């Protein structure tokens, strides 16, 4: 009972991993900004007048229609893009408090709903985590701030674990994953073998089997293994390799990078602080919070 009480007290007494939170939010908003810039040259085809995306029927209601605003207002897309970009930039540098973070999430939803064909799971993950980060600001020391920070970082961790867990659970129900042919068939698709490396690799029967089962087991075990501090670093490094394969061989840089970025929420405080220091980024968490945590 005392332990539970201590745990609950710990939630508001201090922000547990301020540097991890800071590093993660910088990476996440940078990814969203980069993704936006990547789409700008074809914004007319994604959201504008000549959009390739058939408008989806938005449900009635004022609240829902904020999210679907761009579906029926394509010509305004450039303004939403500008707001989204500026908000991402401000959120990276923690300017103007919570406003840019809210704007990133809302405009992010507008962009997704109007241009759904050009998005994949990587964007959805970053967009969802941008919602959790609305509540986080690692500078604070007030108990309410600490609670929100700790809840936000836990939500981000749970979201990543859920992605792996659900993907694995659904895969266990599929024939191609069970017989070991999934990677082979994926690499046979021209889009997932852009440089032809994948297509070349797919001739090696055993390699395809190994990659199939390794991927399946990695995803299945991720939500459990990542909880153990002892294995975490090695597990994340394995995941890094897994996602680099997706980036290089399958050409899915956006999805692969989003998953790699999400690993930052699992990093130890010391490692995150070290990375931030290396890039000259200060995470000015208040002294009061540090003192309180020591006491």
């Amino acid at each position, binding site marked *: 009972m005392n332990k539970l009480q201590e745990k*609950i007290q710990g*939630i*508001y007494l201090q922000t547990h991993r301020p540097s991890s939170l800071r590093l993660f939010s910088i990476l996440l908003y940078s990814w969203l900004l980069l993704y936006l810039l*990547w*789409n700008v*040259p*074809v914004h007319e*085809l*994604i959201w504008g007048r*000549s*959009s*390739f*995306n*058939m408008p989806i029927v938005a*449900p009635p209601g004022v609240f*829902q229609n904020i999210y*679907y605003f761009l579906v029926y207002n394509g010509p305004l897309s450039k303004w939403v893009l500008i707001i989204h970009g500026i908000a991402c930039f401000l959120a990276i540098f923690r300017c103007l408090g919570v406003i840019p973070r809210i704007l990133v999430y809302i405009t992010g*939803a507008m962009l*997704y*709903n109007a241009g759904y*064909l*050009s998005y994949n*799971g990587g964007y*959805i*993950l970053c967009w*969802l985590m941008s*919602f959790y980060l609305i509540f986080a600001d690692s500078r604070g020391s007030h108990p*309410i701030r600490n*609670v*929100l920070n700790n*809840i936000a970082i*836990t*939500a981000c961790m*749970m979201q990543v674990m*859920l*992605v792996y867990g*659900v*993907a694995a*659970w*659904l*895969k266990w*129900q*599929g*024939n*191609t*994953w069970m*017989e*070991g*042919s*999934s990677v*082979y*068939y*994926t690499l*046979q*698709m*021209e*889009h997932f073998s852009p440089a032809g490396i994948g297509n070349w690799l797919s001739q090696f*029967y055993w390699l*395809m089997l190994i990659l199939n089962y390794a991927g399946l087991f990695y995803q299945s075990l991720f939500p459990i293994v990542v909880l153990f501090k002892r294995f975490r670093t090695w597990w994340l490094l394995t995941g890094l390799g897994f996602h680099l394969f997706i980036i290089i061989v399958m*050409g899915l840089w956006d999805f692969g990078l989003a998953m790699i970025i999400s690993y930052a929420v699992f990093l130890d405080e010391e490692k995150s602080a070290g990375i931030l220091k290396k890039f000259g980024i200060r995470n000015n968490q208040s002294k009061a919070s540090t003192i309180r945590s020591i006491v």
Partner: protein
Amino acid sequence: MLAVIGVLALVIHFVITLLYVSSTSYLSQISRPITEKYMEPAFYQGWSLFAPDVAHWDCKVDYRVMRKNSWGSWNYTGELPNQSHPKIQEMSIKVGHYMGFLLHDNLYEENGVMRFDRCEANGYYRMAYFMAIAHQNKIDSSPWDSLQIRARMIFPAAFGTKAETIYKNYDFPARGATQAAP
């Protein structure tokens, strides 16, 4: 107190999320009307990620238009003549992916004739039709009389075999410019 509320909110949020995303489970299906209301559009997500099965084919969406009783050449929706960006192909690939499953699940034969009516009644066909019109407007906006969609299917050798790759085209019935997509 605040900490307890926060933890409770987090637990409830992820329980609903889990119910929503585990779409094949019984619990997920019976709770769908409630979970959908909470999750869409604010927390929309789906994590199939090549699950449960990877398609055994590659499908590309082509189309052609008729002007003055003469059909033009087939155009691939994933490429534009004066614009090159991976996103153009990505959007087309996604529609092609849906079309592949659409044909797999709905195409049937009657008296030796391929029937596309079930496919045409599906939203994914409308998506392809819409994309084809947008693509055509981009390369030549002059009026056309009819538009026809083609699903270009590529079936690779089955895993572990050295069979030949099979290429097969499925041409949907042409639709007039005045006809809206079904």
